[in-house]
């Protein structure tokens, strides 16, 4: 207990230490953006891509002289997929008065907290991943969404199913927020359009390494109900696992995927089993297959080129989101005409109109903080281990 005096003493002194030795980000008069992502944990790979893309963009902007002389600067913090850390990173950023905006966490559950902090601390929070509608419906003043909302994605997928004349679809969704809400929206919109959508009682977790048991239980349903298609409503590794196990079970019905299937590693994992999987995704999945007259085509091609030069791989949707984030920020900052504060930045961002980006044309307004619309997605089919864009008359 005498000892613990020492311990307490030293811990307090460490507080002092850290507070004065807090991160020294050296750069004069640069506009700072805080990035608060899951660099460790299940999303590590994705967030790495994101960082690469952001860095690439920021370098480009700084090369062309930044925002009338002020360079743009990124500060990265890892929130380790942990609620407390995500929140404390947020407050850490708000503490640094020079930071104008925070690019928010990837996971929905963490966003819930950071959005709340953003509202209270009056700092723009740019949400980079498709967060679930429950959050979006909060209509927070300081939170902006980059990615397509689940509503758009589901509607687009319903279009695809209609185009394919699927009458009955079985949904096997993952047990996490995004997948759950995707399934529910798909059911709602699908049944509005007169389809029959069965959401299975069985679910799976992102860490599941074997879906066979679940699929075995679904098999009778598939056979009894004469289901036209199987909607693997999931993201990341489970996607290919499901496809593999389905084929192993000798189930041959067509598979629908989410936009989360639009990544190279999915095909790498699934191999043969992925052939013929169809889904709707953002345009960066197929940079080379866009229409000539597509307004965002040049943006994507240019970004794809630079990305390849720098990192050796092509862009994907995540890289696209990252690119869009930066260019939105850049655009907004430019429209601040020099007097950049958190408030002016927010207003400028809110007035973004017709900005051409990788994922499409962004329009924000006070009532709508989801930039994109249904038109900004395309139908994709996996053929010969490649993403191939497919088109249908009447659906585009």
């Amino acid at each position, binding site marked *: 207990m005498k000892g613990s005096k020492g311990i307490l003493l030293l811990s307090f002194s460490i507080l002092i230490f850290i507070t004065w030795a807090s991160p020294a980000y050296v750069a004069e008069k640069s506009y700072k953006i805080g990035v608060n992502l899951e660099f460790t944990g299940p999303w590590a790979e994705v967030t790495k891509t994101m960082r690469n893309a952001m860095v690439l963009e920021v370098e480009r902007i700084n090369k062309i002289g930044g925002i009338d002389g002020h360079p743009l600067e990124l500060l990265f913090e890892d929130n380790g997929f942990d609620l407390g850390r995500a929140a404390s990173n947020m407050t850490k950023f708000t503490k640094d008065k020079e930071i104008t905006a925070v690019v928010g966490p990837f996971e929905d559950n963490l966003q819930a907290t950071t959005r709340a902090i953003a509202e209270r601390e009056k700092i723009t929070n740019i949400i980079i991943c498709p967060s679930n509608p429950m959050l979006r419906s909060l209509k927070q003043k300081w939170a902006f969404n980059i990615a397509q909302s689940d509503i758009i994605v589901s509607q687009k997928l319903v279009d695809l199913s209609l185009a394919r004349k699927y009458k009955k679809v079985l949904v096997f969704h993952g047990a996490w927020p995004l997948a759950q809400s995707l399934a529910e929206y798909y059911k709602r919109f699908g049944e509005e359009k007169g389809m029959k959508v069965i959401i299975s009682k069985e679910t799976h977790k992102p860490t599941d*390494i074997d879906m066979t*048991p679940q699929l075995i239980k679904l098999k009778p349903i598939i056979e009894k109900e004469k289901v036209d298609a199987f909607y693997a409503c999931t993201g990341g590794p489970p996607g290919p696992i499901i496809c593999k196990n389905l084929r192993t079970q000798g189930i041959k019905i067509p598979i629908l995927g989410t936009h989360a299937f639009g990544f190279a590693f999915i095909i790498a994992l699934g191999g043969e089993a992925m052939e013929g999987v169809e889904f709707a995704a953002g345009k960066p999945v197929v940079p080379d297959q866009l229409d000539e007259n597509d307004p965002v085509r040049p943006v994507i091609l240019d970004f794809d080129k630079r990305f390849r030069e720098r990192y050796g791989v092509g862009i994907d949707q995540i890289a696209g989101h990252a690119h869009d984030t930066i260019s939105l920020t850049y655009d907004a900052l430019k429209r601040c005409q020099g007097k950049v504060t958190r408030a002016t930045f927010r207003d400028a961002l809110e007035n973004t109109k017709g900005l051409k980006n990788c994922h499409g044309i962004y329009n924000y307004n006070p009532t709508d903080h989801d930039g994109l619309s249904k038109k900004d997605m395309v139908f994709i089919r996996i053929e010969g281990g490649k993403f191939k864009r497919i088109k249908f008359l009447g659906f585009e």
Partner: protein
Amino acid sequence: MDSWIYFPQLLSSGITMGAIYALVALGFVTISRASQIINFAQGEFVMLGGVITFFLLNGVNLPYPLAILIAIMIVILIGLMMHVSVIYPLRKAPILILIMATLGTSIFLSSTSGLLFGTLPRTLPSFSGDQSLHVWGVFVLPQGLWVLVSTFILLIFLYLLSHRTLLGKAMEASSTDPLGADLLGISRNLMVFLAFGVSAGVGAFAGILITPIFFTSYSSGTILGLKGFVAAVLGGWGKNSGAILGGFVLGIVESLSLVFIPSGYKDAVAFVILLLILYFRPKGILGSPFIDSRRW
């Protein structure tokens, strides 16, 4: 009830799963035979086995068998290093500290592998074709058979190692009767050291076997490790045969339980079994050489 339609299929997948748990459990048992340490990082060895093989196969472009061999070597090395750097310094520490140290190691290993080899899940080509065999209305992957066969080969190997060789006897002695072992001039630390090597090797082998069926990612080790431990306790703590039996029982029960409960609760099954077995029969199905009723 109609849910029995898919009983045979569930059974077959349960058996495969069971074989894997058995393999992981064998790793635990190997260590426990040399010392009363429970290594919570055991699952990470499994993970590393798969991931490193993938890396050697696709990053360094080694032939498959060579890659497997080298990967096992590397993991064994990691296991030995773990003993030297973590377990040995703490050999006199209380149980709690050891548990935390192994948990810390598991955090370190998994996150480091995520850092070095990426956090994307990996898969390996199966030893003999991906075409699933259709036997009596049951689909079986050839790899599954591979897993079964090698499980039993490994069991025989370990059995011979621990019962027919001097080394095995020495290991067991150093665990069950430390004082006697000292008197016989058996170096306990050396035994634990070797045990860690062997268990790491077993783990890596298991990892390589299962990666073609299930994807191995940096984080898939922990849960496998825990379930493997449950299997070891279930079968009878410290018995190779117990580990195998426990593994299969666990795998099959877990798989068949899906007939009655939604699959989301699958992971809970293993731990419910753990609690039950700990409460009603701590020494497991086959009984355990280490656990007498009074201490545990």
